[in-house]
């Protein structure tokens, strides 16, 4: 079995103490919530913290308040199981319930938190490997090395942003409540991420996510999350499409947001969606156009499961299907060649 390296585990009693510890201990310390991302990575030497500051027992991070003044308040320390099963979340934001419920396996969702999920490390199958493997391959810049093995010409790391809940939160305009040494600040999720596989989070290291706030504005919106992966369990998304849309009584689209995950190092907002759909009655053609636009901004690379050619194609299909689901429009399935492809013959 791969063993965990030695480290010092600290269990603070309050959010304030946790923040202070992280500030004091500096880069040698990391926060740990459920540990489902962190511990396996420590076994593989991808993270090598000397101190872990546990967030598991902080009362400030707990609770789901469905109807707070500003919107729905979700404590960062709540597990994915709790979020996925919460009735209010299911009622208003089925996309979020589905995204949380589609993370990994039941056992991991019982441990893993939503706070950890939005900061889950970016993935790459040159990087998500043991120390032995990475050493044999030659280290890459994300850990211990200085080049990118996927795209040797690339100056930056292209590891894949792989959170399931983050794109949904972005699509709903959710805001992160960050607790730092100088107190609490609010930052829209869209601004937390940066398209850089190594530094994909813009928040400071000593800032902790206390809670997630989904604004009241999102309450009436239809929302959906579609996840592409090989298997019905375990697997990270290799493409995720989160879509949220407000339709008025006349069926006119008042707001539309489509956000992709797992096709870049940060969630990708499909700007064209709002431009093409808002203020209009959504038609099949418009959906096709948004899907086309989404495929244009989807830039998967060959560093996770299923090849980039396929994932790029699927961006179109998944966006189309997500919007069809939100609008209730029936779409025709793709035309497929009538003639079966010629049998392949050898020499």
């Amino acid at each position, binding site marked *: *079995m791969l063993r965990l390296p030695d480290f010092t585990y600290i269990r603070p009693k309050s959010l304030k103490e946790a923040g202070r510890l992280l500030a004091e201990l500096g880069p040698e310390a990391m926060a740990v919530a459920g540990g489902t991302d962190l511990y396996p990575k420590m076994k593989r030497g991808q993270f090598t913290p000397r101190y872990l500051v546990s967030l598991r027992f902080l009362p400030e991070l707990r609770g789901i308040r469905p109807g707070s003044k500003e919107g729905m308040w979700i404590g960062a320390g709540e597990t994915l199981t709790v979020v996925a099963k919460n009735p209010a979340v299911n009622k208003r934001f089925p996309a979020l319930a589905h995204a949380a419920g589609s993370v990994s396996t039941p056992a991991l969702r019982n441990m893993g938190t939503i706070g950890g999920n939005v900061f889950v490390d970016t993935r790459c*199958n040159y990087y998500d490997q*043991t120390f032995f493997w990475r050493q044999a*391959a030659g280290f890459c810049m994300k850990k211990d090395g200085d080049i990118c093995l996927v795209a040797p010409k690339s100056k930056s790391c292209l590891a894949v942003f792989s959170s399931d809940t983050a794109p949904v939160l972005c699509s709903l305009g959710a805001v992160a409540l960050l607790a730092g040494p100088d107190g609490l600040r609010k930052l829209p999720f869209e601004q937390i991420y940066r398209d850089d596989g190594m530094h994909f989070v813009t928040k400071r290291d000593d800032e902790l996510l206390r809670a997630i706030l989904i604004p009241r504005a999102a309450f009436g919106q239809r929302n959906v999350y579609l996840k*592409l992966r090989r298997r019905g369990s375990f*697997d990270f998304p290799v493409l995720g499409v989160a879509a949220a849309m407000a339709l008025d009584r006349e069926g006119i689209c008042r707001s539309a947001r489509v956000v992709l995950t797992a096709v870049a190092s940060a969630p990708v907002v499909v700007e064209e969606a709002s431009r093409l759909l808002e203020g209009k009655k959504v038609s099949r053609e418009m959906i096709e156009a948004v899907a086309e636009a989404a495929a244009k901004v989807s830039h998967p690379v060959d560093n996770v499961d299923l090849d980039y050619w396929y994932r790029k194609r699927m961006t179109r299909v998944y966006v189309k299907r997500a919007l069809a689901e939100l609008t209730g429009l029936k779409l025709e399935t793709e035309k497929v060649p009538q003639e*079966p*492809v010629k*049998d*392949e013959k050898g020499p």
Partner: protein
Amino acid sequence: MREKKFSVIGKPLRKVDALAKSTGDTRYADDLELSRMLYGKLLRSPLPHARIRGIKTDRAAKLKGVYAVITGADLPERFGIMPSTQDEEALAGEKVRHVGDPVAAVAASSEAVAEESLKLIEVDYEPLKPILSIEEALACTEESERIHAWNRRANIQKAVSFEFGDVVQGFAQADQIFEDTFFFQGNAHLPMEQHCALAQYGPEDKLTIWSSTQTPHYLHRALSKVLKLPMSRIRVIAAPVGGGFGGKSDPFSHEMCASKLAMITGRPVKFTLTREETFYVHRGRHPVKMWIRTGVKNDGTLQAMHFRSFLDGGGYSSYGLATVYYTGALQTVSYKLPVYKFEGVRVFTNKPPCGPKRGHGTPQPRFALEVHLDKIADKLGIDPVELRLKQLVEPDSITVNGLRVSTTGLRECIEKAAARAEWKKKFHQLPYGRGIGFAASAYISGAGLPIYWNGMPHSGVQIRLDRGGGITVFCGSTDIGQGSDSILAYVVAEEFGVDPADIRVVTADTDLTPVDLGSYSSRVTVMTGNAAIQACRKLKEMLFQVAGEALEVPVDDLEMAEGKVRSQSYPKRAISFAECVEKAETKFGTLGATGSYSPPKYPANYKGSGVGLTPAYSYSASIVELSCDPETAEIKVEKVWIAHDCGRAFNPLLVEGQSEGSVYMALGEALMEEQVFRKNGLHKFPSILDYKSPTTLETPEIETILIETNDPEGPYGAKEAGQGFLLPVIPAVANALFDAIGVRIDELPITPDKVLRALEGRLKPVSVPSFDFPPPIKWRPGEGVEVPQKS
């Protein structure tokens, strides 16, 4: 065979080890702890192909907590499962041949210290050009590019060629000739339990090793050779195996190193591999490229077939010698084939060695054959089920390559599966995107020959009767989860008329149990079953004699049932089994008996005819119904019907368990699993998260239909029921996909990106390399020794 009502056989009884396994009582090798035990680790090569210029271990040896460090120089003797291809070393001496090849081993006070010490070992490698594909291996014929030095032609481990019947004439008689190429990607066994071995040496200079192995006897021999200890000084105990599937059938480096380090340190040493290491140890399914050419009459009757296979063997021979033959041997036992030519070659590449995995060398050609036949049926406008039914091999016949078929339930398998799946109603009738596919297959019930040449039994059983009626069965067989311990208990309980739960089964311990060759080639039920029956019947003779005297009943009127020995005509005339045992011991002295089994002689006698022989063939037919989303090309298997001729189901529950496990495994191989490598020879994803294997969510409803043909060679008529199920499912998936969306994927696994490419007409056909096969060995039925059939 007598017609008797069974009391145990055929009943859905609990496995003898079920409770211990479900309560967590079972102690697997890694659960074993001995006092003063050390932990071992292997330093593995990061390079696929390199010469070792030197190794410095002194820094590691000096680390606190390290007890010993060894290298290739400490274990220079080569070994390997097949006697003629002993090309493995416990620790690489001069060269490493794949990433993960072990070069040094340490024993330390903890796994962490052992791990730490590996970093202090300095290996000076001279990198060599790696060979990573079949084509490269065939092209690298220069002496300087050799992976091994022992084989005749550079990088060719084995090339074989056979011709059965007149091939030119056979094809000349055909109305039409069809040709196809296929590729079956390699994949891994992925048992839940990673390999583990714990060795202890002394104090009487005796070695004991507990290992998660499927073949304790072969390990026993290999250890003796490598450690230079007589076999009498070595005791091999196969701990309960947490899944094998063929992956724990070779003798392994960690077993040698645990033993050697135990000898050096005088302390027990345990090695437990990580998941990643299991991908480097491998021995999984060979990647095979195949070319098939078949001549048929317009009505679909097969006239002649020419089959070529190219196996990517990886860095060592392992079972490869047998595998290459297996890719050609069993094409002939399901459908009548008058003329057959087979050429096969296994090459060395700088990747982890391939070996036997469920179906050993036969799923690949079966995939090719059954998809090829499906294509032929389609082109001739014949229903693929009908195409098979019209030319099934007859019972009691000899195939063109000299394999003796005794019973076959293939017709019943096909008909029942087709009926249950409503084949006629569905084939070509389902809406676009949904399809149904068919395939059939055959498999061996145990290899006809042992791995090393000898005339001794393949399986031995010893039974001891205790005063008080206790029965202990001793057998070298290894329960790897398939239920072989239970099989022994069922047989003995059936014979003595007692409850299987009252029988103690002691297995897989070379000090205590007679040799059984191991859990491979689906041999265990047939061979240990027969051996156990023989041992029981020897004892029964004695027991009946004393019971007859006591009850004043003629011996041929006696039976054993319900814990009693009694008269069949007057069942009240009875004594208890325990009493009978006491009487027998009084009369005969201590009660014990042995039984053994060797497979029958076989009709063919050409060189290479040993592979494919078996006491009896099992047959299977499968129908797969699936849907494929034409936009995403994602495939969902809706249902699998599988009919299997197992001769006789000892325990239908266990047989169904094997069926479902096989179907699950087949779907993984058909749709997602692949053991693939980067250009630097590194496995792409040696982890259980990224190596995709299906979960329960991907597993459809499976309907198993058991066909019983009561084979004369099998115990109570039983044949194989562990591997054969897997074979037809894979081609049935490919055939169903064609029915669903009209594209053929001739390259496994059938992933959504390939299907989408095929839909868009962009999927490249499988290319096969050219190769000069040796001149064929020619043979015709009748040229061998005549062997009378049992009936």
